[in-house]
Each structure stands twice: as structure tokens, then as C-alpha cells.
């Protein structure tokens, strides 16, 4: 089974993951999580490869990959901004924070900046409601955000990369 003509990813990168999990029933989500850690996203040709190795169909693998919000089929920027849209953040003005990010970076939900630095993703609750509104950039959580504070954080990351 191969995927039309788009095979380009280095499949050897997932070999260790597949060696470990392909024979273990019910491991598809775990395999996809590791795969995403390796490539930064789930390349379609890798999904085909996984389907073949675990004895499943591309449709099923794709079904799982698109069902869960953690998985993405497109590469993301170096900094993944997860903006919390939970209830507490909503009540405390997450909309304004989103606006500030859009203004500062020129991207909206799901998009990546042209320089490949930032991706914005609206997410359900991050569980840090008491310091809402909150965003997580990669593994760091930023709380009690205001539009100005948000812009400052983004600018300091930009400067770091400049």
C-alpha cells in the first residue's frame, strides 16, 4: 500500500516506534503520538506506512488521526501557541487575547506564520483556570494575560529568534 506519489518522509525514523508497538493491540494512538513527536506532525505518507505495519487500513489510521485534537496533519511553527478557550478563560477575556495574537502575528487559529516561527491553535481548557486567560507556548504556561502582556511575550520570542 502506498500513497500516490507523495512519499517523501524518512520512514526509518518511525522504525523503533513501530518495532515496539506494532504488535501490541490498541497502540495506534500511542504510535501516532510518538510519530508526531518525531516529525512534528503526522505526514500522510507516514500514516500509510503505519497502516501497513500494524495491519490496518489507511482509512482507519486517518480516522483516528483526525478524530483527536492533539494530532495535526500539517507542520507547525517552532513555537506552538495553544490559546486556552475554556470557560474561565472565555469569561475573563480570551477573545481579546486571541485578537492581540492575530494583530501581532497576522495569523488566525490553525495558521502558521510565513517565517515558520509561530502556529496559533485554540484549545479547550488547559486546566489553569485560576490564572485565566492562559496560553501555553510549547511547554511553558503563561497566565493572567492581557492583550499588551501577550504582545510583549510574543515580541520577546521574536527577538530571541532574530
Amino acid at each position: 500500500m502506498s500513497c500516490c506519489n507523495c512519499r517523501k518522509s524518512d520512514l526509518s525514523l518511525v522504525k523503533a516506534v513501530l518495532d515496539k508497538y506494532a504488535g501490541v493491540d490498541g497502540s495506534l494512538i500511542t504510535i501516532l503520538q510518538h510519530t508526531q513527536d518525531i516529525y512534528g506532525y503526522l505526514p500522510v505518507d507516514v500514516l500509510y506506512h503505519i497502516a501497513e505495519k500494524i495491519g490496518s487500513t489507511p482509512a482507519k489510521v486517518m480516522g483516528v488521526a483526525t478524530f483527536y485534537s492533539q494530532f495535526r496533519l500539517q507542520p507547525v511553527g517552532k513555537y506552538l501557541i495553544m490559546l486556552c478557550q475554556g470557560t474561565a478563560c472565555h469569561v475573563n477575556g480570551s477573545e481579546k487575547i486571541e485578537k492581540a495574537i492575530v494583530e501581532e502575528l497576522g495569523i488566525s487559529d490553525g495558521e502558521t506564520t510565513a517565517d515558520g516561527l509561530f502556529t496559533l491553535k485554540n484549545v479547550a481548557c488547559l486546566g489553569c483556570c485560576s490564572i485565566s486567560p492562559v496560553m501555553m507556548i510549547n511547554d511553558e504556561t503563561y497566565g493572567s494575560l492581557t492583550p499588551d502582556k501577550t504582545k510583549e511575550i510574543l515580541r520577546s520570542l521574536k527577538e530571541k529568534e532574530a
Partner: protein
Amino acid sequence: MRIVVGQGSCGIAAGAAKVYSAIEKIVPETCELTITGCIGMCFLEPVVDVYDGNNLVKRLVKVQPSDAEKIIAFISGDENAVNDIEITDEDKDFLLKQTRIALRHCGIINPEKIEEYVADDGYKALEKVLKTMTPEEVIEEIKLSGLAGRGGAGFPTWFKWNAARQAQGDYKYLICNADEGDPGAFMDRAVIESDPHNLIEGMLIGAYAIGAKEAVVYVRAEYPLAIERLTNAIKEAEEKGYLGENILGSSFSCKMRIKAGAGAFVCGEETALIESLQGERGMPRLKPPFPAQSGYWYKPSNINNVETFANVSWIILNGGEAFSAMGTENSKGTKVFALTGKIKKGGLVEIPMGKTLRDVIFDIGGGIRNDARFKAVQMGGPSGGCIPEALLDTVIDYKALGATGAIMGSGGMVVMDETTCMVSMAQFFLDFTTKESCGKCVHCRIGTKRMLEILSRIVKGEGKDGDIELLEELCYSIKDGALCGLGQTAPNPVLTTIKYFRNEYEAHINEKKCPAKACSDLLSYRIDAEKCRGCTLCSKKCPVDAISGELKTAHSIDVSKCIKCGACYNTCKFNAVIME
């Protein structure tokens, strides 16, 4: 002396890790520096405690890295060094007014050291169970306690355990639902991050009771710190013989592992969670058969929530009667709430059932931020509802809360003031459920979408006569036509807001006004010429150049250009911009 820095996710986000490093650099060797989980006083984070032996000498709040020297001065004998960051008596009440069982170790012990858990009676309940009780006696004790599922449904725990115990099968599973997906809830995260061994112990007792040889914790992938600490705790427990083969020398063996979820609210539903554990899309199964008969890999399985398990070891040590002595006729023991929103003192609150919403929000939570007026409290997340001011004296009890149209839920309590529009709140939740519906049932998949469309029209000022009735009709058919809890409860936020705030819906539809002044499409801005000093600040801030006027003369807004962003309103120092 021992310095303890609170390091839950919230604390770290508030800067606790930086505080820790600052102290670490200058702490003398004679003083121990360590961490703890979340004490639950999120409004005071980062929190640093100074202990002398087991005595808490000082609790310091909103600590900054620059306070490190003061703290070291204090432990070196300068008694007044930390006066300005010491917790106030009023804030101390936040904890003093609580009764902590599920959270009893949170913010006190180091979650990364099993020795501290063991020293605080940890694993004693497991020992008691394995050495002196039969599985049936354990189930009987839990029955006596009246413990009910803390994930939201409130189903008696003993009944589920008993069903799984009775089920025929050579291999059984015990599963912990830590897929805390309700926006606005973080109790389970706090328990796992702050007291992972309490969860493990509760699960092991459950596994012994039902006869499970394998236990799985299904944790949200969004909780990396919880996963890290639980992974470490499982390893520690294995090393110390609390997990694995022949636990504590008994014939009982049980292994435990973590499965990280991948982000799907519906996986909080137990059969969807099982599907997800099996590597499938998280779509609920038809019940019966119930998981007790046919669950994970179609074997007898029992699923409970984190907080439910967190109560178990206390019940075994103190007796079921001590637990059931707290609470009301229908609801026993304590419940943890995550108090957030427009509240002065947000955090984790554990109180006996039977207290009122007013007790939690005003007495413990200190009331509304900026002394604004309370409007509603949202309970139960997307499955729950908004409870208005008139019902603030409702007692915390599964039945009483259910009667309001909301639910106890998992414990999210989001407080709203008058600036929150209830129609937009309903729209917010429907937006959530529309995205999270797994798509299996037509009523849920399409019904929530139609409801969202109607609500979106209403908040834009395009509501029509009959919209409220149409919404209600859709609500009832989705409730009837959905297979699982997600669909059956998805209409609750709409039904409760219509029930208690119908006037707001009507104002949006008939007068095209948003009484809370929150729906931007229904607002207009103008400048009060008498108040305007002509400072030009607003015209400089306006992103679309809609404001004109000379310096020191009254300005005006060109309504045709205005995009209603509110920048002028937020900028004006003279309250001259009027929002209507």
C-alpha cells in the same frame, strides 16, 4: 527549617519555578529546599511555606524571585523579614473553611517522594485491606460511606465495584478516568500533580475489591506535569512493593500503566474512553452491556474518576460511617470544586456536601472581583447549566443541583458577573459541544450544529421571532436522540439560560440589544461631547481612523467606519466614550 515551594501547573505558570531557582542559589546547606503540589490557593500563587519540622511557621504568598533574600533572612533569624509577603488572616480562612479529604495531602507533601506520602499514613489503607479485609468487606465499607462517582454522574461507587466483582471473567480491568475535559475544571489535575500516590492507593484498593489484575489511568495529554509525576509515582510504588506481584506479601497482584489521551471531550464518557484505550476513535458504545460485564477488550472493567479514587484510602482508614456523617441525605462526604471566573479568590475548594453555593462563592471565594454584582454560576461545564442569583442558597447535593437544571458535574464552578452575556455563554458551550460531538448520533451531530447557528444569529442581532421555541424543541429532541451523556446533556447550558435569563434572549431578538454589553455586534459607540476634553488619545488608538476631532475640542465617531473594537472605550480617561 525547610522551605517548600508550591509547584502545581498553576503555581509554575505564576512563576513558582523561578522562585525556586532564586531560593536555590542562596539557600544555606542547613536548610532543606523542596517542592509540594498545589495547595489550591491559586489566587495567591506562587506560595512558599516555611516549616520547622512538621510545623508550618510561615506561609508566604505571591512570592517573586526577588523575595528569595528575604526568605533566607527569615530562616536565618530575622523574624520580620517576610512580613510584607505573609498570608493575611482573611486569606487563611480560604483553607480553614474547607474540609479536605480528597485533597488532604495536596500542597503539603512532596508529590515526587513516596516517603513523604508513606509518612503521612500513605499506603496504610492498602495494607489494612490486604491484611484484614475481604474484597466483599471493602465493597461493604464503600457502600457504608455513600461515596458516589465524582466525575459528574454521581453513580454509587460500591454498586459499580460490586457489579464488576460479580461479573464472570478471568481477567478484569480497573480504569481511572483522568480525562478531565470539562472546560473550567482542574481538580483531577491537582490531585494527580500533588498527591499521585493517593490515586494509586485508591485504585489498588478498587482493583482488589473487583479482582482486577491490571489498572490503567487514562490521562489528558494536555496535562504533561500530571503524567510526569504519576509516571514517577508508579515507578516508586513498584520499587517499594506497593505495585506488582504479591503486593505487600499478599496474594494480590496488580500492575498499573498510564495511557495518554489525545484530546477529545467525549472520551470522558466511559465507553468512549474504552474505545480510545483500544486505539480507536472515541465513540461511545451502546449500553448494555455495561463495562462491568464487557469493557476494555470486552473484559469486565470498572471505571471511576480521579476524585472518587482519592477518597477511598481515607474511607478505609477512617471508616465509611465517618465519611457518610458528612453531607446530606442523598450526597455523602465532601466534594472538590474548581472555583474560577470573576471570583476574588479562585482555587480549589473542598467542602462537605450540604453547604450552599453562596457559602462557596461568597464565604470562601470572597465574592465577585472588583465587587461587581454576581450574575450566575456555571456548574458542570458543557453538560451543566447556569444558576442565577435567586438560587444561590441551593445546597450542594446531587438532587438539589439537578433540580435547578444544572448538574453537580465534576466540580467546575465558573462565576460570572453582569458583564457576561448569557446568550453568548450558551453559544460558547454549543460551539464546544458541536466541535466535540463524535458524530455517531444524528441528533447530537446535526442538532447541536443547528442550535449553534441559531445562537450565533441571535448574538449577531439576527434573531427571529420563534427562535427561542425552536431552540427548546431542538434541546428536547437532542436529549432524547443522543446515545451518550455528551449529547443528552449538551442542551443544558441553553435550557438553563433560557429558563433563568429569557429576558436576555428576548432583548437580543426583539430589541437587538445585549443587556450585558458583551455582544460586539449589538453595541454602538459615541462620544459624549460634554465629557470629551479633546485629548486625541482615542483617535490615535482607533485602528480604522473612525474618530475625528481637533486637539482640545470634542471628538466624534464615524459610525460607518467603526468596527466596534472598543479600543476608544478602553482608552478614554474621562469616560467620554459611551457604549450602548
